C-alpha cells in the first residue's frame, strides 16, 4: 500500500521488511542522477594518477555514455552529447569542444541507426559501439592535430583495441547500475 505523504511519521516508520512489497516507487533522484553521475565520473577517470607513455587509457566517459544510450534507448535526449562531451573535454586534455562535437555526432548517428533498424541485439550493439569509439578516437586525433602538432595515427591503435574490448564490461556495469537505479 502506498503511504500518503501526510501519514509519514519518520520515527515510527515501519522497517522495510514490514512494508508492502507492492506498488512501491523508486527514488526519483536515484533514477535520474545515476546515469548522469556515472558518465561524469567515468569522464573524470583521467584525473586519477594514471601515467601512460602514449594514449592508452580508454575513454571511459564515452564508453559509459554509449552503453547507456545503446542499452536504454530514449534515456538520453538527442542533444545530450553536447553537455556530456563538453564536460569530458574539461578532463581529457583535448581542445575544448572536441568531444562536445564528436559525442553529439555519435549520438545523432545512433539515432539514425535506430530509426532504420528496429531491433538491435547485443552483438550489433557492440559493433555499433566499436565503430563509434574508433571514429570518435580518430576524430579526436584529427582535431588535436588541427590545433596542435599531432603524432602518428598508429599511436591510437592499442587504445582503440582496448576500448572496444572493454565495452562489454562497461555495459555490464551500466546494467548493474540500471538495476540498482530502478529498484524500489
Amino acid at each position: 500500500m502506498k503511504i500518503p505523504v501526510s501519514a509519514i511519521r519518520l520515527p515510527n516508520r515501519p522497517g522495510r521488511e514490514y512494508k508492502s512489497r507492492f506498488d512501491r516507487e523508486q527514488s526519483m533522484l536515484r533514477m535520474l542522477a545515476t546515469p548522469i553521475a556515472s558518465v561524469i565520473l567515468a569522464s573524470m577517470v583521467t584525473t586519477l594518477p594514471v601515467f601512460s607513455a602514449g594514449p592508452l587509457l580508454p575513454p571511459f566517459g564515452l564508453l559509459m555514455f554509449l552503453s547507456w544510450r545503446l542499452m536504454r534507448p530514449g534515456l538520453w535526449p538527442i542533444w545530450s552529447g553536447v553537455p556530456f562531451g563538453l564536460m569530458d573535454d574539461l578532463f581529457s586534455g583535448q581542445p575544448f569542444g572536441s568531444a562536445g562535437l564528436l559525442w553529439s555526432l555519435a549520438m545523432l548517428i545512433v539515432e539514425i541507426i535506430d530509426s532504420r533498424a528496429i531491433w538491435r541485439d547485443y552483438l550489433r550493439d557492440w559493433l555499433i559501439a566499436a565503430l563509434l569509439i574508433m571514429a570518435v578516437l580518430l576524430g579526436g586525433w584529427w582535431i588535436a592535430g588541427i590545433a596542435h602538432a599531432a603524432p602518428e595515427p598508429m599511436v591510437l591503435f592499442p587504445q582503440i583495441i582496448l576500448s572496444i574490448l572493454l565495452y562489454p564490461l562497461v555495459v555490464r556495469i551500466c546494467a548493474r547500475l540500471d538495476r540498482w537505479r530502478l529498484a524500489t
Partner: protein
Amino acid sequence: MAPPPHRRSGFSRKAQYSLFVTYVVAIAGTIVAALLLTISVVDPAGFSALRILGTEVTAPVARVVSKAQQSTQAITHSISAYINAASKNVTLEKELKASRNAFIEVRALRIENDRLRGLLNLSDGDMQQVAVGRLISSTASSTRRIATLSIGRNFGVERAQPVRGPAGLIGRVIETGPTTARVLLVTDSENLVPVMRASDGLPAFSAGLGNGFVLIKPLNLGENPFKVGDIIITSGNGGLYGANIPFARVIRKTSDGALGLPFADPANTPYAIVMKPYLEEARTEQQMLAPDGETKEVAE
C-alpha cells in the same frame, strides 16, 4: 532492444512538436560545439580557465591517490632493499669510493671552468628553481601528453617555465591555476626541445612522438651521426630549457635521426622541479617580437 514507443509521436501535435524541438536542439548544440571547437583551435589558451577549474576540482582526489601510490611504492622498495643486503652493501661501498674520487675531480674542474668563464666574460643563464611539486595525473586517454602538477600560482609557478625531475627534463608549464599547473611533456608532438649529444655537443632538436619516445634530429642534416646508447642532454639554446639537463638515451637509429627514450618517466618521478626560464631576459625580448600564442614555436 526495440526503440521506445515515444519515438512515434502519433497524432498528438504537442508530442510531434516536442520531438521536433529535440532534433532542432541537437543540431544547434552540435553547431555550438563546433563553434567552441573553432574558438579553441584558433586560441588554444582560450578555455584554459574552464580546464583549470576542472583540474582544481578533481585535484584533491588525485593528490590523495598519488600520495597513497607513492607510499606503497616506498614500502615495496624498502622491503626489497633487504634482499641481498650484504652483497649490495659491498658493491655500494666500492662504488662510493670510486665516485668520491670522481666527485673531487669534477669539483676541481668546475672551479677551473668558472675561472675560465670569468676570463672570457661569458654570462651564464640562471638555473634557479621556483618550486618543487609532484605530478598528480596525466591525460592518459588523449593523444596530447599533458601532466598535472600539484603546485600552481600559489608557489610562483608561471607559464613557460621548464620542469625537470631528478632523472631529467619533464616538460614545460603551459597553463597555471591557483593550486595546480599543466605541464606539456617532452613526449608531446608539439614540444620541441633544443638538445645536444653529451659526448661531443652535436646540436640537434627533439620532438615528441606521442608514444613515450622522442625523435632526435641533428641540425645539420646529412649522414646520421647517432649511435645506439648516445646520451642526449639539453643545449640551452632558445633560452627556455636550461643547459646540460639530462634528456634522453638513443635507443634506435632512424633514417634521419634517432629514436630516444627520455630519462624522466612521469609515472616514476618522485618530484618535479619547476625552474626559471634559462635566459629569461633574452627570452622576454624574443617573446615581444614573436609571442608564443601567435606564432608556433619552432625549435626554440
